[in-house]
Each structure stands twice: as structure tokens, then as C-alpha cells.
């Protein structure tokens, strides 16, 4: 069977090319997949959670993402040109430092998230004007949820 035409996978943000090697696949003990060819035998365990594909093989854990999912998870931390600040982790909003109309500078604290007793300050990825704060203190937010919308200042 072919794996062409499937949603492409990313490893650390880079598209992975389908390997040109041929493997024989069989199921191993305890749910393992055993891939073998003339060069090697590789035992792996796999799982998929939403858009994330997990593999344990060759002594380490590998995380792949489906291409469409990348902007949601990775964009959370990076400067987002659309001015949307997203939650970098699942957690509870402990404090909101800004309100609609406030002008902020790059790096300014916008709000405080807490999870597992650790605090994380969400800072402005760029300077601009706050257009909307979509969460309030006490809200539980999921990874990737929009927290604040900003109109970035012209650069």
C-alpha cells in the first residue's frame, strides 16, 4: 500500500520525506511494531493523540505533528503576525494585566497562567494595541487557545 497523499508529518517543524526504504512489518510482543529489512530490525511503539504522533524506537521518544497542526501548537510561543496571543500550555488564568485599548510594548506581561503550581507569564510578542482579551481570571484554557488579540504596531 502507499502512504502517498496522506497528511504530511513534521518533525521539529520540518516536513519529513517518506523514506525510500522497504520494510517488512509485523506485530511484536506487547503491541510493538517490528520493522525489518536486510540491514536492520527496529522495534517501535506508537500512539496518536489528535494531531500528534508518538513513536518510541531506537532508545528514544520521537514526536511528530501533522502539518496542519503545526501552526496551532508551535505558533503559541512564537510571534504571531496576526496579533493573536495563544496559550503556551493548558492552565488556569491567574491574573490579567491588560484590557482592551491598552497600548503595550514587546515583552510586556499580558497575563499570568498557572499549571501544576508553576506560573508562566504570557508576554506581548510584539508592540501594539490590545483589541480584545478573550479570557478572565479563573478560566481554564487549553494549549493553543486564543488569550489576547492585538493590533501590532506598524514597523
Amino acid at each position, binding site marked *: 500500500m502507499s502512504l502517498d497523499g496522506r497528511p504530511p508529518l513534521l518533525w521539529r517543524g520540518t516536513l519529513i*520525506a517518506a523514506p525510500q526504504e522497504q520494510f517488512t512489518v509485523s506485530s511484536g510482543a506487547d503491541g510493538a511494531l517490528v520493522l525489518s529489512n536486510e540491514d536492520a530490525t527496529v522495534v517501535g511503539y506508537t500512539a496518536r493523540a489528535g494531531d500528534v504522533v508518538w*513513536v518510541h524506537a531506537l532508545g528514544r521518544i520521537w514526536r511528530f505533528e501533522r502539518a496542519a497542526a503545526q501552526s496551532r501548537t508551535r505558533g503559541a*510561543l512564537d510571534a504571531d503576525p496576526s496579533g493573536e496571543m495563544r496559550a503556551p500550555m493548558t492552565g488556569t488564568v491567574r491574573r490579567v494585566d491588560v484590557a482592551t485599548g491598552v497600548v503595550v510594548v514587546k515583552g510586556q506581561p499580558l497575563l499570568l497562567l498557572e499549571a501544576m503550581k508553576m506560573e508562566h507569564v504570557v508576554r506581548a510578542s510584539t508592540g501594539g494595541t490590545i483589541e480584545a482579551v478573550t479570557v478572565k481570571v479563573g478560566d481554564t484554557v487549553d494549549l493553543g487557545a486564543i488569550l489576547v488579540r492585538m493590533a501590532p504596531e506598524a514597523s
Partner: protein
Amino acid sequence: MKRQPFRSVLVANRGEIAVRLLTAAREMGLRTVAVYSDADVGALHVCAADRAERLGPAPARESYLRIDAVIDAARRSGAEAIHPGYGFLSENAALPEACEEAGLVFIGPPASAMRALGDKAAARQLAQRMGVPTVPGYDGEDQSDATLAREAAAIGWPLLVKPSAGGGGKGMRVVPSDDTLQEALAAARREALAAFGDERLVLERFVHPARHVEIQVFADAHGDVVHLFERECSVQRRHQKIVEESPSPALDAKTRDAMGRAAVALTRAVGYRSAGTLEFLLAPDGSFYFLEMNTRLQVEHPVTEAITGIDLARLQLREAMGEALGRDLGLTPESIRARGHAIECRIYAEDAENGFLPAAGAVLRWRPPSGPNVRVDSGITTGSEVSVHYDPILAKVIVWDEDRDNAIARAQRALADTVLLGLPSNIGFLQAVLAHPAFRAGETTIDFVQKHLAQWRPQGEPPAAVMALALLAAQAAESAMGAGNRRPSSHGPRSDDADAFSPWDIARSFRLGEGEPAS
């Protein structure tokens, strides 16, 4: 001291430590009671007990931190003793007091000793009176911003700010200069209040580069105190220990002896009972400073168990029954010997590839390592839900071997065999620590991670076989979803040994990136 043998014990905790303590109690033939919040219905620790009692809603303040709910749970279940584990109520002197009032045995130190030693400021003052060196700092009752700013300037920069009632690095931070002091004080107070219900802070000179070396002590109600050598816990990330070992690669026999004597003296001075740990900073010149005492069993206690062969949890239970260390348990300073080298690696639900942010989610696959002298203390299993409400520690992998090099090799093998799928963890980062030349050389100072692995990212492209596995996993999930639409002829024969319940329905052989092979 009269004997007070109890036949049942309630463990007022969750996760790996609850499992470990319930297991120790079961091995002694005791009836075991677990407690749980609404987030932990059906959690692994609940399944490890004979009976389980609900405490309340998911937030710790409404469940695991509620003394009244814990005492009620003990009453309902007929438990005669309570073990607090670590974290939560373990260093709250109100719990032993409530136990006494309710006629329950508290497994741990008396409230008076907890108060004298558990509070960082009080412990420092006691150590100073006894001639045990402490790090210059401020631990006064006046907690106003102005006073703290003045004291900070007097101590000098960089400075360490930490919760007076704290432990485990929660709320601790290094302040490089007075520019950021006010922001650091505010954040430390909030975290201290959230974690410990007490916002008092301690300021301290930041000794650098230092090692974190701690002494395990054990005391009984008859006045016997012993120490069980040291653990070095210098490899930390943001003040959270991640790798611990014993013996310390840096401690000579003379310093070990001096540290041990100071630890025993402090423990004896407050009428301590049960297991405790005294933390020291070891400076590059070999001088050491007392930091604080943790009046509980520590996360890293298995390291000491591995080198001494002593089960500290069982020892706590037997001591709480009134047994004497020397007379009943045969433990004297002469009889306690250390052998070989032990290393513990803590597995956290943290996204090490993404700023170490806490990661919640479902454990889709957990397959712990095994083998000679490999121990795994775990609070999860395949199917567990890791919630945002509690500590991110999932499991500990502890290995023992004759010497440090072999112990490192064994730890590497064990981590390589650890399958944890479904949520991000720090396993890859732990592997990077163990593989680092500075770690292997024993150059483990508290700034190890900052110095050597601050920019860590997973290295190396996935080999073809790994990519094939990933593509197969993505493919299988889709096939499973669209199973009704498949044409049977488009698939090769199932392999004879395929798991009947497997989502996999795949050809025995395929060529990635090419067309359909002949079947």
C-alpha cells in the same frame, strides 16, 4: 514509649509516592486506605489500596490539602494511622496535631519538631545557635517590601528568594540585580501562597558554583538518631531536582563525616522522629552551609534505599509503631553501610522541547524499564490522565550498580527502554544529562543545566525506520476511522501473529513513497 501497633494506614497523597507507601504497608500486612480527588477517580494509587475514600474536588486546596477531609476519610475507613507522603500536607504541623486529637498515629515527626525545623527561617536560626554554618541571608518576620529591599542590598547580588515554608524549589528564584527584585518578590509570594498557604520569604546569598548535598537522617521516639549518608541533587532545572545520586562525586570522607554529625546533632536537638533530610550547599572550597530540613520522606529516598538496602518507608511505619532503631530494628551507626552507586532520574510531565511547560493529557502508552537493579516508582499507567492540578512528577527510574560509571550506563539503558507516549516529558532531556561529558566527569554543580544544556534540543534526524513508524501510526489512525469504506482487496494479507484487537491492518511489506505493491 509504649508500643502502638496499628493494623491499617491511610496514605494522604497521590501519584507515585502514594503507590510506593501503600505497597510498603501491604508488604507489612497492613490494611491500606487511599484517598482521591475528583481528578483521581480510578488513578493508579487508588487501585493500589484495599479501600479508597474521596476527599473532594480536583483542586488540591479542596481535596489533598484539606486536613478535615483527610481525618474524616480515616474515620470512615477505620484507618488507625496516616502517612502524609511528600508535598501536600506532609510538612504542615496542623496534621500531626489533628491526628493526635482524633486518636490517630501520624507517621512522621512530631508537630513541635516540624515547627522548629520545617520553617526555613527557624531552622537557620537553630543551626546558627548550634554552630552549624548557614548561608548569609535574611529570614526576619518583617516582610515589607522596603525591609526586604534593604536586606537584599546588604546581602548583595545575585540573590536567592525562596518561600519560608517551602520545599521542592516551588517559588524560588535567583534575582540578578535590584531592577527585578520587586517583580520577583511579588511572584515568589504568590507562588508561596498558592503552594504552601504562607507567603513569607527568605533572602539568601547565592553561593556559586555550589553543589546540593543532603543527608538522610532517621530518628526514633527513644532518642536514637542515625544518618544514612548523603545524596547529591545538584542537577536541577529551575530549582527542581531532576537527577540525584549517592554517593556524591565530590564529597570526601572527612566532609561526609562532618556533614553527617551536624545533621544528627540538629535532628536530635528538636526531638525529631522518623525520616528527615538536611540540605546543605557544598561550596567549591569544600565548606558547607546548612540550608533547610525537609521533615518528611523525600522524592529521592530510593537512592538511599539502593545504597543501604534499607526500606525507609517500612522503617517509618515500624518506628511509628513505637519500635526502637537499635533495639528492635537493629539499626545503629555501625550497622548502616553504603555499597555501590545509585542514580535516580525523575520523569516529569513537562514539554522539554517547548520551554519545559507543564504538559497535561492522557498517557496512551506506559511501558517502564526493568532488569537487574532497575527500580521504577510510578504513579501512572497506560490510560492514566495527567491533570494540570498537581505536581508534574510521573515516575522515577532508580538504578544501582557497583560504581558510578556502570550506574550511569544502566540508567541510560533504562531510560532508553522507557516508553511514555501521549504527552510530552523530559525523558529526552534526562538522556542528554546522563550523556553529557560534564555529568560523566562528576562536574555536577547546581548550574549544570544552565551551563551545559540551556539550549538543549533533540538532536539528529529521525532515521528511515522511525519515519516509517510515524507514517504508519498516522495512517493506522485514519484507517481505523474510515474502516467502513475500505476495499478489502486494497490490503495485503494480515500477518499470522497480528493482534486481533490491534488497530493495525497493514500489509506485511510495503514501500513507502511508492505505489501499491503486488499482494
